[in-house]
């Protein structure tokens, strides 16, 4: 799949923003940190910039409001509705002077919004890399891990830093299992089922419909990103490892600069992870253009 920059930025930034907010509410509930306006401001800025960047890849951004209408069937629509509804309890949380119940409601809506984002991808059957049980946990875990890592820049003690380390480690582990799943399985659709010619033998593309590329090949048959996927996977693992070690070493105390660097590293690594999520995903359309599996 074509890794559109706007969508990669959107899912990473808004995920981090929602994760930051959820982490803050949970930390406040456990008495590890005090809710504060700066954290809410940062999470708000991340969410809004993510939402704005997601409208950038639309053909008609001025019609974006229409996307709120089909929540009965469309996960994209549900995500839009939930993201807007979430702002209400978030605002009330500030206005009521951090009333815990409202905080929990806002956190629940944030969680549901990230869930809806993940469901957009998980519900797409033609894309084997997304239509599986890793997609939703990965989106939620990465949102929480990046959010929690951002939260330690502003508040909290060793409990919060330990949580960040554990979340990062967990996200990392599930990601490794996901990549193993991706390497060991393929879609049940094949060139034979795509053409229905399997009973005659092995099906190979003889001649493409055009000598040049087309929308389907650029959007769904994108391959350039896959060329470097092993290197990028390793880079992601190293970066997450470094961040875990950095925060782990300064669990009890440390210079803030370490956590700043760790947070930057985690965000960069998450962008790489998100890039790979798109670039490594194959679509069944490619079966009609010479791919031997999807």
């Amino acid at each position, binding site marked *: 799949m074509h890794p559109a920059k706007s969508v990669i930025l959107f899912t990473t930034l808004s995920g981090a923003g929602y994760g930051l907010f959820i982490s803050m509410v949970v930390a406040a509930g456990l008495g590890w940190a005090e809710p504060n306006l700066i954290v809410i401001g940062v999470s708000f800025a991340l969410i809004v910039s993510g939402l704005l960047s997601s409208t950038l890849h*639309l053909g*008609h951004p001025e019609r974006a409001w229409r996307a709120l209408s089909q929540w009965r069937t469309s996960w994209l629509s549900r995500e839009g509705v939930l993201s807007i509804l979430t702002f209400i309890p978030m605002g009330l949380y500030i206005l009521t002077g951090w009333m815990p119940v409202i905080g929990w409601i806002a956190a629940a809506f944030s969680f549901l919004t990230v869930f809806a984002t993940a469901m957009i991808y998980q519900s797409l059957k033609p894309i084997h890399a997304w239509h599986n049980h890793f997609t939703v946990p990965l989106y939620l875990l990465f949102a929480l891990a990046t959010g929690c890592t951002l939260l330690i820049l502003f508040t909290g003690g060793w409990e919060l830093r330990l949580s960040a380390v554990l979340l990062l480690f967990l996200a990392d582990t599930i990601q490794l299992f996901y990549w193993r799943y991706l390497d060991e399985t393929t879609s049940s659709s094949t060139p034979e089922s795509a053409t229905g010619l399997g009973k005659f033998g092995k099906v190979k593309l003889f001649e493409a419909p055009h000598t040049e590329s087309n929308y389907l090949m650029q959007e769904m048959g994108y391959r350039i990103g896959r060329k470097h996927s092993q290197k990028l996977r390793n880079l992601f693992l190293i970066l997450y490892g470094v961040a875990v070690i950095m925060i782990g070493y300064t669990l009890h105390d440390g210079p803030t600069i370490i956590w700043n660097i760790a947070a930057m590293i985690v965000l960069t690594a998450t962008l790489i992870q998100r890039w790979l999520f798109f670039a490594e995903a194959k679509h069944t359309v490619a079966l009609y253009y010479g791919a031997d599996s999807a």
Partner: protein
Amino acid sequence: MTSLPKNPPQKKLGLVIDLDICVGCHACAVHCKEWNTSGHSAPLTDTDPYGAEPSGVWFNRVHSFEVIGENDEGGRTVHFPKSCLHCDDAPCVTVCPTGASYKREEDGIVLVNADTCIGCKLCSWACPYGAREYDEDAGVMKKCTLCVDKIYNENLPEAERVPACVSTCPSNARHFGDLGNPDSEVSQLVAARGGYDLMPEQGCKPVNKYLPPRETPPAPAFLEPKMDASGILGWVDKLLSR
């Protein structure tokens, strides 16, 4: 509404494509482009049409596949036209966040309302067949309309009220009709020839059907040169062989 019709369409207009007959001439794709560039979803924009990387919106494309049997025997080339299959359970319709993508209750045709499409491209991701075509220029998604502006057009003689790809096919490899009616000509054809669905495992229940190439005995591997010359040729052969 992007929900599928509450009452599933009784009438299911669609195409039956005969892979035994198709000669891969691309006339259906060309006539499709010609008709539709001034039709319901006009224009079918081309980008860089005379440049180094021409690209454009096509609702119908002809792929050619090579099928190789066991032990490299019985190889055959199959020309394979593909356009929207107007699925019963069309995922492109239900994923649409705006309601621009819809399936008609009266005849099952899947269409896009270009006035409400936001160009998010999600429908093109949801379609396993690649039936959706994004128009970079208009910023909206387009697709095969089954020539909805031709098949009901009372200004045309009745015989011409079929999709452009069907009326233009020189080898009669394309058939159009109501696949919801088991007694229709197309349904009879599907039953008689073992017509099938593409990628049934994707669960979209496509309306369009494909008729498989007929089973033919594989050609002998090699032709031997004819050695038993007789008559005048035999005499010349004998003379020259001395």
